[in-house]
């Protein structure tokens, strides 16, 4: 009579599951529960003004009316459009600037350690504080206009934050200032991972700066680039605190991002069920987009792993294939 025995691998799995159980329970409460609650509320007309707790929200059950409404909500779509515009302008600028800085650092630049700290500093500033800094910078009597006025006297009449277009430009500048360092950091790491000897070999073969970048560095940096772009796109899409402090979404709704719009809906209009519906939709769409990007990055990374296998010490490899 033999007892059914578990293989070592099975046992390990069981043990692992036991250890993971508390975490999984915790996750149910902090992720699954709010999500379900949100889904529930999003299918009602419930608002805290009803004077009932959210559990009674079923009284105003409306199925998918909120979702139907968001599809035609012109304020929402305007906010989304502004956010997308913001992302497609700000992120590429951050990317190119970051790449330029990273290349400069790799090629060797005077006073690198000092410059390094200076370049990274904006990233350390709390976004709300950065918003406040730029709120001051872009004042009509602010330092920027004073500086511009030294060679263009009319600059002192420029009003940045109360002009629809200029306010948009101003927030993009602020965001670029704050987040180029992150791009730089990621891309610098990517560039550093490009094998030095291959760059030198390419150089000896007559490759100039562009060819070295195009044929040697770029193929190896693809993964890092995709990750950096995905990270900043997602983050930038959610921009809130800096805008809230700097312009409050104004003038009018000129700099009102999606997050800011949702915030106003939530705390000024108290349309909680509608906000829940929008939140869910954004979550689903962003997850799909991010999933797609990460999938691509993983594929690129896999290719790199194959390459890395080829970089094992030569002596350790068989002499004949």
């Amino acid at each position: 009579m033999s007892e059914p025995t578990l293989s070592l691998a099975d046992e390990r799995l069981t043990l692992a599951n036991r250890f993971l159980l508390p975490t999984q329970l915790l996750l149910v409460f902090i992720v699954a529960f709010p999500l379900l609650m949100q889904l529930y509320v999003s299918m009602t007309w419930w608002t805290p003004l009803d004077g009932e707790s959210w559990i009674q929200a079923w009284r105003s059950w409306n199925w998918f009316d909120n979702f139907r409404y968001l599809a035609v909500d012109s304020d929402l779509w305007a906010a989304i459009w502004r956010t997308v515009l913001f992302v497609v302008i700000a992120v590429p600028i951050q990317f190119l600037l970051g790449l330029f800085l990273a290349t400069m650092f790799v090629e060797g630049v005077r006073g690198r350690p000092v410059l390094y700290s200076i370049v990274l500093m904006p990233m350390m500033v709390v976004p709300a504080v950065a918003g406040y800094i730029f709120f001051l910078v872009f004042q009509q009597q602010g330092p920027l206009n004073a500086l511009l006025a030294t060679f263009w006297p009319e600059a002192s009449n420029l009003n940045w934050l109360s002009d629809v277009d200029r306010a948009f430009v101003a927030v993009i500048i602020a965001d670029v200032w704050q987040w180029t360092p992150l791009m730089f950091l990621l891309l610098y790491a990517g560039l550093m991972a490009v094998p030095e000897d291959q760059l030198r070999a390419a150089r000896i073969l007559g490759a100039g700066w562009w060819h070295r970048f195009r044929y040697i560095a770029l193929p190896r940096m693809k993964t890092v680039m995709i990750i950096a772009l995905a990270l900043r796109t997602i983050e930038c899409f959610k921009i809130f605190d800096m805008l809230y402090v700097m312009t409050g979404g104004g003038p009018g709704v000129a700099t009102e991002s999606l997050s800011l719009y949702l915030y106003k809906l939530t705390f000024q209009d108290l349309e909680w069920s509608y906000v829940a519906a929008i939140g869910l939709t954004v979550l689903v769409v962003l997850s799909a987009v991010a999933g797609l990007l990460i999938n691509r990055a993983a594929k690129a990374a896999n290719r790199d792993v194959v390459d890395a296998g080829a970089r094992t010490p030569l002596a350790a490899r068989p002499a004949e294939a």
Partner: protein
Amino acid sequence: MSSITLEGVGKRFGNFTAVQRMDLAVENGEFVAILGPSGCGKSTTMNMVAGLESVSDGRIRFGDRDVTDEPVERRGVGFVFQNYAIFTHMSVRRNLEFGLLVQGRPASERRRAVERMAEFMELTARLDQNAATLSVNELQKLAIGRSAIVEPAIFLLDEPLSNLDAAFRERMRSDLRQIQQRLGQTMLYVTHDQIEAMGLADRIAVMSNGELQQFDTPGNIYREPANVYVARFIGAPSMNILPAELVEGGRRVRVGGNASGATSLEVPTRYRGAVSDRLARGGLRSTSLLLGFRPEAVDGPSSGAEPGSDGPGVMRWSLAPTLIETVGRRRIGHFELAGTQLRGTWHRSVPLCAGVPVDLVLGERNLYLFDADDERALPSEPMGEPSRQLVGEPGPRGGITGVSS
């Protein structure tokens, strides 16, 4: 095709001198090895020739062209790195055509050149594989082919064989020599392996501590080392060097002081001129020398022969081995004389016994004399037939004055 000329080229990193100013003239089509231990400045020298490192002093010329200030990408040298630096994210074809690609050559020309080179390097079957999948010998051929395809006049190789295991290295060594002969380029080859250098190179530049020690053919470097360093570095086991004192007015050198086994040997004929010059110049340490002989130059051992029966120019020296090693077909006897370790090698059939004195038989042509202070070889007359000059006769540069300390 092009020669390489280094004129007073040196390299300093801050206070540290990596390469002392040196002159080196590599002729067109010549295969020159730069030989030395790690950190001797040989790779730095190579990198300066390639342009990967700027020079602190001096000029570098390829043929008549002064390339000292030209950037790497315009010097047009081929360079094979120690780890080959193959572009592992590209196919073999892309690797081969890279040099032509960045020169902007048309696709048809690239294709023709790649196919020719692939055939030459026996890589045709691999052309469309990822370069990362190649074996080590193929990687090496690819590295050479990739550099050779742009037809550089000068080819630099940085320890290309050091990643290979011993058996395969042997084969690549002969392959490399063949490739060089077929391509006919000027090759500069950095290595720390003396066998590689001796076997491959037309001439060897021996470096140590950032200084060029000697630049000559492998044979001359072995036969006439310029100083104690080169003498010890080339050959294995390395040359025996022991302190010696000129005695009897410069006719003989005494080794071993007053220790047992000490002896005196005739000053070899080819050094007589130098020795008499030295004594004539005088000075406190003029009689102090270093005597060297190679372990494999020792004949014998025989015993019981009458002194002087060996004919002119042959010396005998009776010593008792302290330890005997047998390595393959060689038998190595270890001796000790006044604190200096000496070695002699014989065929393994020769009977040797620890503690039993044997005669080391040395031809005078196999003895070397070095200055005790700067460790340079004493100037010698060219080694042709051993000169028949008799002991005690005045040297060609004047009589020996009785100097003895």
